[in-house]
């Protein structure tokens, strides 16, 4: 069984539980876009734009460590939260089952 459950809260506060595949090599950003969430992802996943930022509400400990590139990009946000991550740098994997994220506020 390679599907996981991810709970997504949009910027209006609506929460949806989604089933995400982990065997297609998708990042969380690609999955959110496929589910038609309002995620710009201008740079296409190169950790260069920060327009795919999410705040991780539950399951942060399950995620991979931040790379220097991800940290440096996040650090340009004026309203970075301690739990903010770039969705394009989070590859969907079975350990992420139960993850809860909120789309980061956009200026």
């Amino acid at each position: 069984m390679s599907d996981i459950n991810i709970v997504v809260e949009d910027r209006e506060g609506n929460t949806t539980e989604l089933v995400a595949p982990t065997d297609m090599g998708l990042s969380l950003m690609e999955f959110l876009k496929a589910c038609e969430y309002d995620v710009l992802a201008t740079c296409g996943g190169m950790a260069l734009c920060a327009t795919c930022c999410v705040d991780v509400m539950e399951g942060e400990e399950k995620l991979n460590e931040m790379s220097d590139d991800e940290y440096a990009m996040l650090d340009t946000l004026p309203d970075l939260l301690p739990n903010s991550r770039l969705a394009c740098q989070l590859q969907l994997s079975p350990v992420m089952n139960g993850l809860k994220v909120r789309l980061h506020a956009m200026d």
Partner: protein
Amino acid sequence: MISTDIAIIGAGPVGLFAIFEAGLLKMRCHLIDYLPQVGGQLSEIYPKKPIYDIPGYPTVLAQELIDNLVEQAKPFHPGYTLGERIEGLEKRGEADFVLTTNMGTIIEAKVVVIAGGLGCFEPRKPAVAGLEQFENGRGVNYMILDPEKYRGQKMVIAGGGDSALDWTIFLADVVSELTLVHRSESFRGAPDSVNKVMELAESGKINLVLNSNLNSVSGEGKLESVEVIHNRTMETTSYEADHLIPLFGLSPKLGPIEQWNLNISKSAIEVNTDDYSTNIPGIYAIGDINTYTNKLKLILCGFHEAALMSHSAYQYMNPGIKYTMKYTTVNGVTEF
């Protein structure tokens, strides 16, 4: 007032190439961009990344492609208004358009080409109450266009990215007092810049305030001080400041273009693929900003659109005169 044949909104790769295509048809161009430099996404987001899908270049760095496009456009002496955002567009008489920028610059043109990409790259603003009251010449700026403006004055810079580091290094010798506020305790910018900033702090040339965020701004009519809060101890400190420059990067916004009665779908302008004209005669949209069936947001596609747009704009400006396409191999590039 600036007067030109074609006003091009956006100096990304597509707007820059449009100068060349229009120039071959003897039409003059003036480009306007909100960023202080030309290049659009390539110069702003990924200047040092290699691009592999530009015909004839197995690989080219994004900034190198922009430099070459500027060079290629030179024979046609384009005008540039940089660091200003086009806000107003008005049709005057039968054929002419009048464009106005946020700084009050007026550009009159026979044809308008919107090559605005993802929209205007606007600064990300920190959520500090009352910041807006000090914008527009009263102390708060989000871009540095003329560093000399700050000579001998007191400045606070906020941010931890490369531009915050670079400007700190540059302005340390220009301003009388400089405070750099950064949210975390280390910087992940270019190691060389980080070292220079640390040296400036150690030698007392700048105040380096780490683990801290902007808290509030105050002043009578113009900025006088900036309060900073330590994000662990929650202690606040106030710094006298004539200028505050928050540098938290840029994010694109469609902005004023949405109000111009153009047909828009999902933040992009609908065009006729015969010539990339919009629903308003005399206004074209090329590059990432337009949309049509099977649109690909690629530089290559924007270049093609610029060529077709130019031929149509020539016909629009010269009704009744038939233009026969000539190769540059036949005619060369005749400057004006």
